[in-house]
């Protein structure tokens, strides 16, 4: 008798578990759309020419010739704007480096749907500047980190120009700072010309044009003779304002 009751109890419990599992699987389909895949690639230019390190000479707004030896920057807080309203946010940081081809492509698993654009910051937000040692892209081993005045270097543009009076005719702009006197975090907002539809694992690619010449122009035309080095808060915000418009959508495939 006792055994029979126990068996019935067991069956009931099992039935409840099966029911709950079915409902939760069904719910997950409703709540979470299937994952899609997106590759965001960064194409580096100087004006209309593709950026080549060391070998190609370009001209700044003042007509001063220069070559580029280093171009790298942090991207973070990426938020994709949904056509239906709302956003899909990602917490990761990426260090995009002209010298490392693989860093110029970011792979993102993103819920399928229609997207109209994306927002992100160039730099590293204040929380990640104040929370001690970080790993991954934010590992201080990447030498994008100021030790004497704690904080990440958001962007580095280095090169040479005959107009520069620094040793070796070098110029270097190391821009960072998450607090006053020079908060250099810049928010970028890009819109697609047409909404991009991401379907289940179709693997679309979004190409972003990054014009390194913008570091040196608008609103402030940088003169290599008078300002060949920015490595702390002095003049940093000016250059951050310059490069805040260096990103544009190249194409969506």
């Amino acid at each position, binding site marked *: 008798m006792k055994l029979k009751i126990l068996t019935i109890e067991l069956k009931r419990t099992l039935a409840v578990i099966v029911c709950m599992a079915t409902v939760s699987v069904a719910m997950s389909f409703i709540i979470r759309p299937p994952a899609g895949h997106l590759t965001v690639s960064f194409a580096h230019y100087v004006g209309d020419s593709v950026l080549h390190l060391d070998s190609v000479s370009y001209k700044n707004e003042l007509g001063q010739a220069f070559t580029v030896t280093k171009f790298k920057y942090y991207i973070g807080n990426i938020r994709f704007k949904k056509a239906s309203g709302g956003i899909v946010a990602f917490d990761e940081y990426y260090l995009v480096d002209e010298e490392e081809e693989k860093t110029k492509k970011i792979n993102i698993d993103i819920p399928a749907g229609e997207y109209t654009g994306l927002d992100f910051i160039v730099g590293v937000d204040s929380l990640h500047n104040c929370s001690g040692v970080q790993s991954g892209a934010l*590992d201080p081993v990447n030498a994008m980190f100021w030790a004497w005045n704690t904080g990440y270097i958001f962007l580095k543009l280095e090169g040479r120009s005959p107009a520069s009076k620094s040793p070796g005719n070098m110029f270097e702009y190391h821009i960072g700072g998450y607090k006053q006197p020079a908060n250099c975090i810049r928010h970028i907002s890009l819109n697609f010309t047409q909404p991009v539809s991401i379907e289940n694992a179709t693997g679309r690619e979004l190409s972003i044009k990054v014009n390194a010449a913008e570091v040196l122009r608008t609103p402030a035309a940088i003169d290599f003779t008078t300002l060949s080095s920015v490595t702390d808060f002095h003049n940093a915000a000016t250059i951050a304002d310059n490069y805040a418009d260096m990103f544009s959508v190249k194409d969506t495939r």
Partner: protein
Amino acid sequence: MKKAVVILSIVCFALVGFTGVNKYFIITNEDVALKVPKGFPKPHYRFKNNTPSPEIFVLGRKLFYDPILSRDSTISCASCHQRIAAFGHIDHALSHGINGLIGKRNVPALQNLIWKDAFMWDGGVNHLEVQPVSPLTNPIEMNESIAHVLEKLRQHKAYAEEFRIAFGDTVISSERLLKSLAQFTGLMISSNSRYDKYMRGEDTFSFAEKNGLEIFRNKCASCHEEPLFTDNSYRNNGLRPDTALKDKGRSSITGAQFDDYKFLVPSLRNVEMTYPYMHDGRFRKLKNVIDHYASPQNFAPGTAKELDEIGTLSEEDKKNLIAFLLALTDKTFLYDRRFVDPFMQ
């Protein structure tokens, strides 16, 4: 179960005896347990995502004492942060780095670091874990890069195993390097000086020490706030700027002119051992420091207004004040075996 524990313990003891490991250098769970001293505020650094363990502490201790962290493997953290001087640089006015290079500031003592919200004389470093990056990469200190230090550690015959013991696998990363150092330095806590014992009712003060404490509370404690003996603020303490060093202090971090010549108020714990004094080490004796603060006519422009309230002190007052300051020497901390150079074993 009990039997297994007993057998395991016997095996462990036997192994220790057999390998001749010096018990003096063994770190236990008890050794790394954070005990916030009675009357101390809540620590700023609370070992979040960096829970202290004996193994990680031991790794941090070794790294602190290993010259491998400098470019030419000649100096370690401990070269300038000497245990017997509360981890300051005894009898050195200015820090010095590899190749005999001389810095522009006096080496600060390392103690009660988890109560600090910023580090360095100018407060430029905002977190205990990233603090070591500064001396490590400074061209006039260790002149290294993190990448190169990690490479040297990876090639070293012992460190892969020591990182494995500490973290479970042999990965040697900057995160692990810095977190282990933070465990070692973060547990450097001074809270057992004669002053502390007096406050806890475990010791008595002499007449001079009592008078000194009273003078201290009237004239010094608004900046050197008990029980940490600093309020972690930046002040212009009236020193005439050194024209050779050209050090503007806090304003080099904030860019604000009103921060010119302000420096972090240092703790006075173990002040007996941290001579010479001030951010540039210009005063050799405590008496010189007190003479400075009691000579308002010599203050530089921009001196913190709190200093005007000190006024003049009699020679008797000065003697009493020094007697009190000597009661801040914490022998428990200075001779703590946990912080002894492990390369000595």
